[in-house]
């Protein structure tokens, strides 16, 4: 009985097509970032070992990206149950996709700041050092910057259907590209298996 209730609850909120679309949206930023860094590291690894090892490093990265995509997909799918039950399935998928994109963007920005060697101005650092609570201030400042960048798009999403349509369109366009990434994952799996024979 409970299984049936659960199944009913899932089918009311999601369709197979919708879940697949959400999975692809979860996989896209994770794979994109992994591939950017894999290509960035390629010459470093080749210089120290060889091309085959560099491909190996990338292959493990792709498998991890796939696994992480599954984990993120599951988490967001569960989060989807917190959205209003009267939402259309497509709207829910679009909303969750928006959240994935925003969080991934911040994940990338945080790392890019390091890679591009961006640090706060000297005066800010001095202020932090003299404040006595540098960590607390940094957390508060980060929240002050990040929170609006999440809340504003969410507000726009809830307010205008045009935004929903844009997200759906973006999702469709990225799907094909993400399918290619999944093919790379498969190739990565084969390479890892060969390397471990």
């Amino acid at each position, binding site marked *: 009985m409970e299984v049936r209730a659960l199944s009913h609850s899932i089918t009311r909120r999601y369709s197979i097509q919708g879940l697949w679309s959400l999975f692809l949206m979860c996989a896209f*930023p*994770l794979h994109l*970032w*992994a591939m950017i*860094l*894999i290509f960035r*590291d390629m010459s470093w*690894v080749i*210089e*120290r*070992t060889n091309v085959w*090892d560099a491909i*190996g*490093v*990338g*292959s*493990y*990265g792709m498998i*991890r*990206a796939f*696994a*992480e995509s599954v*984990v*993120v997909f599951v988490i967001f799918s569960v989060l989807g149950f917190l959205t209003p039950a009267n939402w259309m399935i497509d709207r829910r998928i679009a909303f969750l996709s928006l959240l994935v994109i925003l*969080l*991934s963007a911040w*994940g*990338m920005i945080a*790392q890019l700041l*390091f*890679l591009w060697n961006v640090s706060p101005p000297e005066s800010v650092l001095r202020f932090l050092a003299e404040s006595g609570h540098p960590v607390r201030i940094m957390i508060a400042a980060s929240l002050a910057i990040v929170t609006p960048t999440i809340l504003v798009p969410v507000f726009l999403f809830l307010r205008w259907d045009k935004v929903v349509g844009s997200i759906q369109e973006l999702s469709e366009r990225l799907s094909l590209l993400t399918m290619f990434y999944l093919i790379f994952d498969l190739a990565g799996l084969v390479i*890892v298996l060969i*390397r*471990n*024979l």
Partner: protein
Amino acid sequence: MKNAITRRDFLKLAGALPLGYATSRLTRPFKSTSALQEQSKNIIVIVFDALSAHDISLYGYERGTTPNLARLAKRAIKYHNHFAGGNYTTPGTASLLTGVLPWTHRAINLNGKVTPPFIDQNIFSAFNEYYRIAYTHNGFANTLLTQFANDIDEIIPRESLFIKTYDTLISTLFKNDEDIASISWIRNMKVNEEGSAYSLFLSHLYEALQEKRIEDLKPLFPRGLPTISQVNPYLLETAIDTVGKRLPETPQPFAGYFHFMPPHHPYRTTTEFFNAFRDDGFKSPEKPPEILARRIITQTSLSRMRTEYDEFILYCDREFGRLYDQLESSGILDNSWLVLTSDHGEMFERGIAGHGTKVLYQPVIRIPLLIFEPGRTEGTDVYDLTSAVDVLPTLAHVTGQDAPVWSEGRILPPFMPSSSDRGIYAVQAIDNDPNSTLTQASVSIVRENYKLHYYFGYDEVSGEEIVKLFDIRSDPEEMTDLAFSKKSTASDLLNEIKAKLAEADEPYLR
């Protein structure tokens, strides 16, 4: 054809079966009372990875990095001009273990393996009447031990002495590709250490879990826990205690090889030695940037790294002192030859830090060698030029065996009279096919007080040859290149290197 069941396979089976267990127990007392035990002393070889003689106070370094070695060396034979066979783990360790130079054993690539004849011609096969036991933290050295496994009675599993963390999973899961899997794991997950990671979300979760797991130990290591190339944290104390407890229980005579990771990078010393040399006024001589450097590191960074390295050496020194004391109090040293050495050095000059370099300056190839003879109460200083390839024939000689015929080394003084009629070589050929002639390599030769560097085939100099000559007795820091002012000496040494290279390449000419 290879035997269906090797001796090692049999030992593995014996460990797995109750009957085998009983059998091995029964055979041990028999083995220990054999006639061999009456004559033969045990052998213990201790290797600290990347320990440069240049940074050891016992060898004249300004900073007091080795107070324990100084204490113990009063009973040891100290070799002051000892050289590694190569400038990183694979060739350096393979030369120590096989008694031949890298151009002969051909373990020249990163994580490379020795060429087939040396799978059965190594320190373990030379002591085939002994119980042979080995351990290493280092993955590259482990590759070699695995290659020699048929001649080793017991290899202590590498992971068994790591701190149990989630990183261990990678070593276990991808055993056959551990090195690359670990590199990828670092790049995928170590967002805090690397600043960036392939993983956007899981890396943060992973680091948080990992931090929690090693929380208790973190205060003891202000620069972070020592790790094997940033995965698999370990405590040197654990390895030292394991060896210290294990050897007195090991069937005798035994030949033990123990290769510890420190002071290899990352240089993470304990609180006891943290900042021991900070602002101590020490200044390394400034040297011109090296043309073959991958990228030039500033002098300030080099000085900081060297300070951290020196503080890490203090940790090694303390732990070696502890091991020595444990072995001495157990009585094992009364009946054992103890060797302390390294596989290669480490450098912090000319814009280069570490040892993954093409150059062969003194800090990266001059390593310590101390031999503790059973019963010796006085120290001896040996200033002859000696090589890592000499260790195997010397150990064979002092334990009453013939020096292995394949070895390119010599029996060291004082066990044989000194002689200065040979050059001491170090070889770096990481980018070559081990089964072909060497086309891009670095070779150094030291003869009497001169050292010649020979570099060929490198893109940085459009494939041109580089030759440098130094008088290392009057100029130990290798500051003044004499290749032009002492042309005939340079030419003689260069011809000697080229003749040796041709000889080493001969089997690979197609």
